[in-house]
């Protein structure tokens, strides 16, 4: 058994996860969504942006599984391509927010004192806004586009990561090996990189999984009010926004993208919850 310790850790985690029913369900949903997103070009029967006015607003049926929208575009195809967009948005947001937040948090926690105080107050200010409202204001100020919506969503997520990582960093920096490292002459950057950050990784990953659902939801909300994805991009939130106008007579238009958001977000949330339980050292051994 000469496996890398990280690999061994991963195997153990997976084994515990497999025994957890909600992790299984959540995981299955995530895998399914990823597969749908990756396979969209193969699975989608129609071009998601191709108009077919003669078929507009047709009900779900054999030709169009989820019906068509007001321009005759196939909703099933659009929802599949929408999965690509929503998942990429989620991942991008989490990556940007996670990396930035972790760096801020680790630095702040490691140095402590005045720097810590100043940084954390700024984070508190950001946190004190309801995240959706702040994201809305930012996106509106930057102008409507998908990139801006991603940046705005990422920005409001940064403090969550910063706070979490900072808390971990505060305790990690007191551990003997950090002191040893310092005595051995290691610089601040080295210690943050090699000791602080890796030890905060577990909780950051849990938070990332948990927030991924939120990120998708906020980005979809921004698109819903027109600040995110621009037409004809088949983004779920944007689809609901235009489908809402037809909800009374054509239920399928807004319903299917809505269901996909619901299922995806729930999937990420229950998986994240399960992951938190699994990675908790008190439960683990």
């Amino acid at each position, binding site marked *: 058994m000469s496996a890398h310790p990280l690999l061994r850790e991963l195997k153990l985690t997976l084994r515990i996860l497999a025994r957890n029913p909600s992790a299984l369900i959540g995981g299955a949903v995530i895998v399914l969504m990823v597969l749908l997103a990756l396979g969209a070009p193969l699975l989608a029967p129609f071009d998601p942006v191709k108009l077919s006015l003669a078929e507009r607003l047709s009900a779900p049926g054999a030709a169009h599984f989820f019906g068509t929208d*007001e321009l005759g575009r196939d909703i099933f195809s659009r929802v599949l391509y929408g999965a690509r967009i929503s998942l990429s948005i989620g991942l991008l947001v989490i990556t940007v927010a996670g990396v930035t937040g972790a760096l801020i948090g680790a630095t702040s926690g490691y140095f402590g004192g005045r720097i810590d105080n100043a940084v954390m107050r700024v984070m508190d200010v950001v946190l004190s806004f309801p995240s959706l409202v702040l994201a809305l204001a930012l996106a509106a100020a930057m102008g*409507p586009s998908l990139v801006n919506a991603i940046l705005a969503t990422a920005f409001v997520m940064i403090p969550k990561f910063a706070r979490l990582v900072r808390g971990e960093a505060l305790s990690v920096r007191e551990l003997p090996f950090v002191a040893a490292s310092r005595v051995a002459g290691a610089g601040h950057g080295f210690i943050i990189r090699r000791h602080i950050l890796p030890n905060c990784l577990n909780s950051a990953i849990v938070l990332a999984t948990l927030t991924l659902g939120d990120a998708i939801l906020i980005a979809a909300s921004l698109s819903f009010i027109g600040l995110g994805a621009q037409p004809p991009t088949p983004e779920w939130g944007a689809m609901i926004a235009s489908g809402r106008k037809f909800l009374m007579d054509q239920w399928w238009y807004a319903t299917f993208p809505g269901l996909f958001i619901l299922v995806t977000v729930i999937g990420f949330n229950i998986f994240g919850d399960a992951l938190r339980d699994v990675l908790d050292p008190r439960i683990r051994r």
Partner: protein
Amino acid sequence: MRFWTILCCLVLLLVGSTVYAADKDTLVVSVSSDIHTLDPGVSSDNYDWRQIYPCYDRLVKYKVENGKGSTEVEPMAAESWTVSPDGLTWTFKIRKGITFDDGTALNAEAVRYSLDRTLAIAKGPADNIGAIATMKAVDDYTLQITLKNPYGPFLQTLATDGASIVNPKVASHAVDKDLAQAFLAEHVDGSGPFKVVEWTRGQRCVLEAKPKYWGGAPKLKKVIIRFMSESADRRMALEQGDVDIAENILIDQIPALEKNKDIVVNRYPSQMVEYVYVNCQNTKLSDARVRQALSYAVDYKGIIDHVLQGNGVQMRGPIPEGMWGHRDDVFQYTRDVAKAKELLKAAGAEKLELTLIYSERRATWEQIALIMQANLADIGVKLNLELMSNPTLRDKIDKADFELCLGAWSPDFADPYMFMNFWFDSKNAGLPGNRSFYKNDKVDELVRKSATLSDVAERKKLYSEAQDIIMKDAPYIFLYQIQTIVPLRKNVKGYVFNPMLESMYNFEAISKE
């Protein structure tokens, strides 16, 4: 005790809107967008006129014949009039006893002041009454108007919103010689049957009836105009009885309304057209070949057959069917992708990226915008869409701060002047009418000349020649002429549609059973 008071207040708050519509004295109209200004001398928007028009009197008004709006006029504030044989001098006898709210008498001087004010402001409405050369109050109740040239539709132009008679006392509200524009943008001061008592932006505008109106007290006490941007919301409010009239419902939702036995859906042939302003001053669009390519790209038939579900016809030339001067043989663009690409190539504009701005004023516009985006993509033009509020949109139009913009137009009097001169005369650039900022000297000359003549055959010939040039220059993408559909609750009586008064209501004659 206090508990019950609070509870009652809450209940009242919750059902507040329903209470209004259920009230027989109050008419609630739900419309798609907020208004821009209340100044009759400034506004060239029927959506503003909806509120302005019933607050003022004019010299003449459009007749109602057998329950139908006519394009002919009859006396209003003018009791009678005579015209000199050469058609140049008009003498109006003003009705005595009409007063403004503060007691000021509506007399010849008030009419002169109002018309003069509109002309001096020189915005869109000024062009309606642009035939006027001089005015003179012969005595207190006699006004003499001299025209620059004989002008056929002159009397009808006096029935348009821009000819509203304003209380001359508003002059005291003038700031920096603005002719009280700042004041009248948000207030009304007229002798009409209603007055605006509240305008909450983005919410509603409330008109209150004047029981002492000289033409008889209106049957309604109050009219509430509610701004609701979603067609589905307007429809729901109408079905629930929260509102009495709902404008601009998506055609897809009309069949469901027709099934509701509490609602009557009226359809009227109209001269309302929808089109796209192509900003000719924009460097990307200054080449006529590029504009032609855009006109060739649009799938007119698909839009009319499916989005409008046949409730419209493709425009042929700028003048709508039913108006004299309309030509059945003028060139009409139809979708031709190959030709459009060829034109773009010839113009060296193959990598074109444009932005179309639009509002939710018309319920169908979002679909039209999306279709145009797909249609233009077919010819290699990337089209960005930008939705904005109607007042913002109108500001941008006036400043030529756009590339493409969706618009609607309906005539205010039955003369092709409404289209040919407003849309193409370069001196009307901007909101007044020439919203594509089009300038062609030959067209300017033709339409200006036609406006000064009284011989219809001669005028037709000039307009006809101008139309051929215009279709080649393609300053607008001419979409379609639509049918006006007005759904109202069954207990609303007395509504009369007039194609010259699109989106405007005869509130003074409407009642609720």
